[in-house]
């Protein structure tokens, strides 16, 4: 039984980490009032680049490149949506399209080959054509990994540990530090923040870039940390599931952990349920679940009293301008 729990839980963590990483950044963007709908596109770019760069330079460089690319892509959104005050929804969708197209293009065999050779001329030819990269190794934390049940938390790869640290850290920054306070205020009432001398545009820009960085990281994890086999459009809507997770977690990084593992758990357990003869549970309904739950959560948080209590970013999606 313990073994079973460890196996399911360990896998749940692996699956959930994608959603966790992506939603952590998105929480920051949305808390500052920017809806980053480019999440999906940034994630898939992160995955594509981590594939190419792992082959050329190894994991560390690949992860860095994914993060930096995520930041740069979200900078496009930040400039267009925050400074130019263009519609965030439309801009975000455009970014998703761009990411899906560009990633498919860069990772297509011909371009990839040229790119790999340029990056590292010493690469053996056999590497130029393959679709996989080495997976991130599991790191067993001494002592902790030996504890029954809990142990499975400590037999994971490095990015999972990053997410363990990032989630509480992001929570702490958001709720217990000055930059976090500024960020939340900007998303709630930019005029108030502006009056207290906070640069609303800069805060929103930085928050959007944070979301891009995490989305890039999530993409890198999805590829390197879970199933290191490249295919076009690898994310398959995971960015949008992360968006619904952000709502479900009511924009709170700690609750996002629970939500991410819940989503991950459902995905893992459904295959076990099939094997218990409970296959009758419609897979379509199960896949719909995150979206339906998110809509329900949206309805719940739009009730005025709930909204105030939870601190739903009141100016989400509304560009700020100082009007005379």
């Amino acid at each position, binding site marked *: 039984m313990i073994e079973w729990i460890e196996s399911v839980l360990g896998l749940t963590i692996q699956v959930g980490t994608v959603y966790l990483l992506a939603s952590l950044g998105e929480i920051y963007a949305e808390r500052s009032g920017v*809806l980053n*709908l480019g999440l999906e596109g940034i994630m898939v770019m992160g995955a594509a680049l981590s594939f190419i760069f792992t082959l050329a330079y190894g994991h560390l460089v690949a992860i860095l490149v994914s993060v930096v690319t995520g930041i740069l892509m979200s900078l*496009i959104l930040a400039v*267009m949506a925050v*400074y*130019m*005050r*263009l*519609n965030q*929804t*439309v*801009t975000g*969708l*455009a*970014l998703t*399209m*761009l990411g*899906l*197209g*560009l*990633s*498919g*293009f860069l990772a*297509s065999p*011909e*371009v990839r080959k040229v790119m790999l050779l340029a990056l590292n001329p010493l690469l053996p030819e056999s590497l130029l054509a393959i679709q996989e990269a080495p997976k991130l190794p599991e790191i067993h934390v001494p002592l902790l990994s030996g504890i029954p049940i809990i142990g499975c938390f400590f037999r994971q790869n490095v990015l999972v540990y990053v997410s363990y640290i990032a989630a509480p850290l992001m929570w702490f920054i958001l709720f217990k530090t000055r930059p976090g306070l500024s960020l939340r205020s900007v998303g709630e009432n930019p005029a108030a923040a502006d009056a207290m001398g906070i*640069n609303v*545009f800069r805060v929103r820009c930085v928050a959007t870039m944070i979301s891009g960085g995490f989305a890039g990281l999530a993409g890198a994890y999805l590829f390197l940390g879970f199933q290191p086999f490249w295919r*076009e459009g690898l994310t398959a*809507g995971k960015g*949008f599931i992360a*968006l*619904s997770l952000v*709502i479900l977690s009511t924009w709170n990084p700690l609750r996002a952990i629970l939500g991410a593992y819940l989503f991950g758990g459902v995905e893992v357990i459904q295959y076990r349920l099939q094997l218990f003869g409970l296959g009758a549970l*419609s897979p*379509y*309904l199960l*896949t*719909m679940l995150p*979206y*339906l739950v*998110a*809509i329900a959560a*949206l*309805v719940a948080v*739009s*009730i005025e009293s709930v909204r105030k209590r939870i601190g739903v970013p009141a100016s*989400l*999606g509304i560009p700020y*301008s*100082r*009007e*005379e």
Partner: protein
Amino acid sequence: MSLKIETRFGRIRVERRVGYGRLYSISMTLLSLALAFLVVALILASLGLDPVKAFQVIFGVFMKPSLLLESIKQSIPICLAALGLSIAFKMNFWNIGAEGQIYMGMIASTGIVLLHAYYGFFHEWMVMPLMFLASFLLGGAWCLIPGALKARLGVNEILPTLMLNYVAILIVDFLVHGPWRDPKGYGFPLSIPFPEYTKLNIVLGEPAYTGLLFSILGAAAVFFLLEYTKLGFEIKVVGQSPAVARYAGIRVRSTILLGSFLAGGLAGIGGLSIVSGIIGRLRPGASPGYGYTAIIVAALAGLNPWVTVAVSIFFGGLITAGGALQMSMGIPKAAAQMIQAVIFLMILVGEFIKRYRIVIERPGASER
């Protein structure tokens, strides 16, 4: 009266441009389009491909009757959905759920066909009108969900419309894998083929002509709605300012409900045009993101229904041309998608340039 908004980035100030004319607006749109093509040309050139040849291929699509016809066929669902979106966007209702509404339209029209085919309900001549009605109603109802959430509970429509896309797609998956599977289809996930009299080929027996007719009729209807009906006027007022609308005695809630219903309904008919005009049965993934393309089209057309028809045919052409490029120049499909995104982003930036002008402030000098 002019609004002036001051933003700081460095010493550059951004001012809202006031009272620009139509000519200016059109020329700016064309300019940003030209800019987009320039960027695309640069990308192609940097890949060692000849941009001139690429553009010859793209515009060649519109010169050849067979390809033009095909482009028009592709444009129909996009056009109808974009027409619906222009109603929604006029109302300041950011419906990004046209994709889901298209799928619901497909479900509804297939449902009618199946009722007829399996149970013999209705006469043959009634099937087609009923398909129209049903796809309009179901597409509308699907958009009415976020509409009602917004009108009744003040829920922002962006995320619900997006999420309902996935729900609709999964409902189609469920239906064609399960209850609606063609019993003679060797178990493949698709419905029975639509009978001949449910096909969209009323005009000259060609779906493209028939669809073009519907696109034009749809544009006329939307134009008429927005310009000559009370509801259209109300939709526009609500879109400009709900507060003013309330002041003018307009029922804001029911306007949002009706407006979102119409928007979804048109997308629903777009769904019908796919199953009935292009594919001929229901199957998973029947709409390859037309609902999202429609957003670009509506934005590019400036929410003008007539321009929407032209722009969607242009996009239909791009879809066709994307393939032509791939064959004649070896550009991967993903690159074609990337090019579309670049055009989209450039047009957005053009929209910004249209509405604002950037004033570079000399240090110390006072304005004007």
